[in-house]
């Protein structure tokens, strides 16, 4: 299919979708209106479970099973990337001797912000049930914040501070702990991921029952997952060298006939 044909096909499809979309949007309730049925149901339920941040209550309490699925998607994608980006048998790992030095101002900024970013990440994870934030957001801040060591230092420094193996373990432990908290809800309460811990006093750090615990384990899992994921991309960009360029290589040894 040539580019012109492809664009024409896309244009026809986009025109149909566009016309139907405009017709559908025009009969939607007006933007910013007062009718929000889900809000009216979710907010009292969140407050009844002692959670200040209604979004966290929905994610980790009212719709906890969905977040379990979401977290499993994240775990699976990290595993998939580790498999797709593993070193092939004819690739070698190399390390450049001297990678150069970053600018002094970059080093200064990195060292200044490294502790700040870690503290911000921990704060976002631990207060996810009170203020905007939570395990996913804080985990990403923590996982990427560690890589300031690469920006401000060297790849070797990053490798020394961040051995990948323990992060692989902690990612699995985080995901397993989420499942264990869910099963404890099944054993002690009514259902999987039921909020079985006393919800405490509203608006304090120790409130909302299982929500801060789930935020914590998700934070551990996401931070570790981001570290593992980025380490695979770093390996591809920095250490892995393909043995030789194979312009048209058939992957398997049986060299099956090509189809066109």
């Amino acid at each position, binding site marked *: 299919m040539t580019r012109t044909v492809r664009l024409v096909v896309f244009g026809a499809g986009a025109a149909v979708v566009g016309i139907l979309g405009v017709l559908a949007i025009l009969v939607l309730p007006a933007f910013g209106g007062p009718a929000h049925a889900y809000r009216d149901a979710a907010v009292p339920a969140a407050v009844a479970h002692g959670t200040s941040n209604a979004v966290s209550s929905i994610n980790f309490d009212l719709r906890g099973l969905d977040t379990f699925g979401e977290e499993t998607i994240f775990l699976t994608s990290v595993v998939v*990337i580790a498999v797709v980006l593993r070193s092939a048998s004819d690739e070698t790992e190399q390390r450049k001797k001297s990678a150069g030095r970053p600018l002094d101002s970059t080093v200064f900024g990195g060292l200044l912000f490294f502790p700040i970013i870690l503290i911000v990440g921990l704060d976002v994870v631990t207060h996810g049930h009170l203020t905007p934030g939570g395990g996913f957001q804080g985990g990403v801040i923590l996982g990427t914040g560690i890589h300031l060591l690469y920006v401000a230092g060297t790849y070797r420094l990053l490798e020394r501070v961040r051995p990948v193996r323990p992060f692989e373990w902690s990612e699995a432990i985080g995901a397993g702990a989420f499942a264990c908290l869910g099963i404890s809800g099944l054993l002690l309460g009514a259902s999987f991921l039921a909020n079985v811990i006393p919800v405490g006093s509203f608006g304090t750090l120790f409130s909302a029952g299982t929500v801060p615990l789930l935020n914590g384990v998700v934070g551990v899992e996401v931070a570790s997952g981001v570290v593992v994921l980025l380490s695979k991309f770093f390996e591809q960009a920095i250490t892995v060298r393909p043995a030789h360029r194979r312009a048209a290589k058939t992957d398997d040894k049986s060299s099956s006939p090509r189809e066109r």
Partner: protein
Amino acid sequence: MSHYAYFVAGWLIVIGALGIVRSRNLVQAIVCLAVAQSGTYVLLLSVGYQWGAAPPLFSEPATKPTLHVVDPLVQAMTLTDIVVSATVTSMLLAIAIQIHKRTGSIDPDELDALRG
């Protein structure tokens, strides 16, 4: 115009799809997919918006919680959406790296040969 936000969402989805169709670079196609997905964030958030409403956070001990807040459910769904989008983007980028290693090209138009 009262439906402006919905049209922005629809526009982002269509323009992202157009970017994928016209792309000559797999990385650019992946970024275009992320643009299209961000249209769904705009759609979800605009569905839940209410003029003059507060964020769905309740700081004081709730004697009688106000319902005059924006919809927290669609915000939670947006969070799920963002996580899924990030995982999809990272997986596609990993595949693009391998495609480049195997074929030496990241132009989708040059990747038309099926290999058995």
